[in-house]
């Protein structure tokens, strides 16, 4: 075996915090061969980003390398001064950051930003510089590179910005490239496109790369070798094929089983948990639907500010149709998945159903009663409000930081069931907490004292406390780690099987929806393009868009060999 490009030994990093020093990395060791693509996988707080930042000398003031070495081209990166690192960074080693929008300078054209990087390390004539910029844009498969080079970051889409970020990182042909969650926040189809470009560029240049991600499936599709990290330690280091067949560490096995794409049904997802109650048999009698939506529409006017030059013109009346005539029926006890990419109108639709915003046209019938004529402000005070509740996307920001867990769950009860006494309220809150598996000892705590999974449970308990008939879940697990996501998904299934509450599950993740829902609706540009059972949509997609979506989902490589044939 040739000498490794990068050899990290016993890297330890500590952070100074309000509650004393915290050891972020403990004796992390790994090697990276030239041209190899190494995936570092771990959940939040596992130290995967800290590893990258420590190697590049980008740790912030509170962080300190406490031991170890990182040999790169005969030099120990951890002992170099910032001046020497500046010579290496950009030229010999480089990084692609997580959020492409914040990583680019908003007031400089992207072509100039790439040229800046090249000029810093390898100045040449302006014509040569421009040619190199265009070359690197072409390598990123950006159409019309001459025109795009003059664009500002805000004129480009998120995926396009990330390609520029990769182009910048590769501009000086580095030998080492670190990508820190480069596709988080991108749509699944965009993610696939960006990852393909990334892999091809890295392979072509023979660059050794470290790909940091929380998504095991994504890493398995693109990487040669995977490093699994847990609370600052490397727990597994093996080639991709081996990880899935012979995972040594229990944490790796748990991570694998928590990944939705690794299992066929919700019962198989992290089976160490308490078993789920059996699914109730489909009821023979057709009961009246909980929710009926007919031809719901919502448009947003393009906000074009009036300037000096156009103030006399008639106001621009162009409207973006966010939701364009959607029909939907949800029966009691049913779980319906609403899938689509960002901007397809799924959030707008879920907010209209919840009467948080008013619809332009169409009908919403909650248990046969029309509610679309009631203004959103007045609906808050009506008894029907209790029937339909919502769980929000980010568990952290959906909790009032000044409310304890008890107050958070009790608040809607106090508003929607004002006639219940103190004792009944307490009993109700405790019952809701028990239902979602939240220990009663946590009730007096405040959100910042809870973990992400506990916060998600509080959000669900808050919605369930008033015993709704329909629960709208707006990407409730997208901000959670996979192992926590698995627990929350099982919890939602349990609630549905035990309580019979209907669920509308809004998500961009087809894999999650497949496990949770009986029926799937695929939304594209404000319209529902496909409806069917989960099995139908997955195996026999009817619409082109659904097929594209399915093709782009990262799947665990070598996991089910029978399917690959």
């Amino acid at each position, binding site marked *: 075996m040739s000498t490794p490009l990068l050899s990290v030994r016993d890297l330890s990093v500590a952070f100074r915090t309000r509650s004393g020093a915290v050891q972020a990395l403990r004796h992390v060791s790994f090697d990276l061969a030239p041209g190899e693509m190494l995936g570092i996988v771990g959940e939040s707080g596992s130290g995967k980003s800290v590893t990258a930042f420590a190697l590049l000398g980008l740790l912030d003031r509170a962080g300190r390398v406490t031991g170890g070495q990182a040999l790169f081209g005969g030099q120990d990166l951890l002992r170099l001064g910032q001046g020497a690192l500046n010579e290496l960074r950009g030229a010999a080693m480089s990084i692609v950051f997580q959020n492409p929008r914040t990583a680019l300078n908003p007031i400089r054209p992207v072509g100039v930003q790439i040229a800046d990087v090249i000029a810093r390390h390898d100045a040449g004539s302006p014509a040569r510089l421009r040619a190199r910029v265009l070359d690197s844009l072409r390598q990123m498969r950006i159409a019309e590179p001459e025109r795009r080079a003059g664009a500002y970051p805000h004129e480009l889409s998120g995926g396009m910005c990330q390609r520029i970020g990769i182009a910048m990182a590769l501009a000086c042909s580095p030998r080492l490239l670190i990508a820190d969650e480069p596709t988080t926040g991108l749509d699944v189809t965009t993610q696939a496109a960006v990852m393909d470009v990334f892999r091809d560029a890295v392979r072509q240049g023979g660059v050794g790369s470290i790909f940091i991600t929380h998504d095991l499936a994504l890493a398995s599709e693109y990487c040669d070798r995977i490093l699994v990290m847990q609370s600052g330690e490397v727990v597994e280091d093996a080639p991709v094929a081996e990880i899935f067949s012979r995972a040594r560490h229990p944490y790796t096995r748990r991570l694998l089983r928590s990944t939705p794409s690794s299992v066929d049904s919700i019962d198989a997802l992290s089976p160490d948990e308490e078993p789920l109650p059996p699914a109730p048999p489909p009821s023979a009698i057709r009961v009246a639907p909980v929710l009926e939506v007919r031809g719901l529409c919502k448009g947003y006017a393009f906000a074009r500010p009036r300037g000096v030059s156009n103030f006399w013109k008639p106001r621009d009346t162009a409207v973006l149709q966010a939701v364009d005539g959607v029909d939907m029926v949800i029966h009691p006890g049913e779980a319906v998945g609403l899938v689509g990419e960002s901007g397809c109108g799924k959030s707008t639709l879920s907010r209209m159903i919840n009467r948080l915003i008013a619809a332009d046209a169409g009908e919403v019938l909650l248990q046969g009663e029309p509610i679309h004529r009631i203004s959103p402000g007045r609906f808050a005070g009506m008894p029907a409000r209790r029937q339909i509740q919502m769980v929000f996307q980010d568990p952290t*920001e959906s909790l009032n930081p000044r409310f304890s867990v008890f107050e958070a769950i009790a608040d809607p009860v106090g508003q929607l069931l004002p006639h219940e006494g103190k004792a009944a309220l307490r009993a109700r809150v405790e019952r809701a907490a028990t239902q979602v598996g939240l220990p009663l000892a946590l009730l007096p705590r405040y959100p910042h004292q809870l973990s992400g999974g506990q916060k998600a449970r509080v959000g669900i308990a808050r919605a369930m406390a008033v015993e709704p008939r329909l629960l709208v879940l707006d990407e409730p697990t997208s901000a959670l780690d996979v192992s926590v996501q698995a627990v929350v998904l099982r919890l939602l299934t349990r609630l549905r099987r035990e309580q019979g509450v209907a669920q509308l599950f809004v998500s961009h993740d087809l894999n999650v929806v497949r496990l949770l829902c009986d029926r799937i609706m695929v939304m594209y540009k404000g319209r529902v393009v496909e409806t069917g059972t989960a099995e139908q949509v997955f195996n026999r997609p009817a619409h082109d868009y659904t097929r594209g979506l399915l093709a782009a989902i990262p799947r665990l490589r070598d996991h089910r060999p029978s399917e690959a044939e």
Partner: protein
Amino acid sequence: MRERLLLLRYVLAENPVNLVALLLLAVLLGCATIGPSLVPYDPIATETAVALQPPSAQHWFGTDQLGRDVFSRVVVAARLDLAIAFAAVLLSMAVGAVAGAAMGYFRGPLDTIGSRTTDVLMAFPLFVLAMGMVAALGNSVSSVVYATAVINLPFYVRLARAEVSIRRSLGYIEAARVGGSGHARILRVFLLPNILPALVVQASVNLGWAVLNTAGLSFIGLGVRAPAPEWGIMVAEGAQFIVSGRWWIAACPGLALMLAVFCFNLLGDGLRDVVDPRTRT
């Protein structure tokens, strides 16, 4: 509680300047509360026999042209100056927070009218506006309070509006609406308590300006009337004696004024650290 104490210790250890600010504040508040009963001389009793004496063991800060003890007057003046500043800042914070929060939450015409009004208010030279208001309302302590409150109002309105604009689309506000809370309850229970820390930081910095503003108004003869011990008046009275070398009459109250403003500014920085460690520079 324990957690709070730990946080306090962390903040004080991280930045010892905060400790200085807290000590200064304690001294200022001590002067304002128990100062009048501790001082060695009556702050308004004149004794022409000992007029214009330089600082000595009897008169630590010397005496003024009427033989009044400057030290006693400086200490006693803290009560009036701080009382005016606190009252004015509290008043503008209360009004500004509610108005700004409502503007940020409801948007629409209310926001437009409110924002333009604060713009107009801020376009005036603030001190001249305060002078005009005191002149119009009558020369009294209460009109100084109102004038100071009005010129500080735009800062609170803008801050509260900005903070509420950030939070109005957060999950917990939507959750409150799904949970059956009306607009008024969302503002009162969910938004105002959450923007309070930012407002308190602003208030702490503003206290310094308010003290300066009060002193400035009385320096030019508006608001507080002459025999009452007040830092601005004392500086004004002492100014004419500086040329003849009797610096202590103006310098001592001036120094007190400077320390007070300095203390509130430091305190604002320290509070910002406690409220949001990320904005620390």
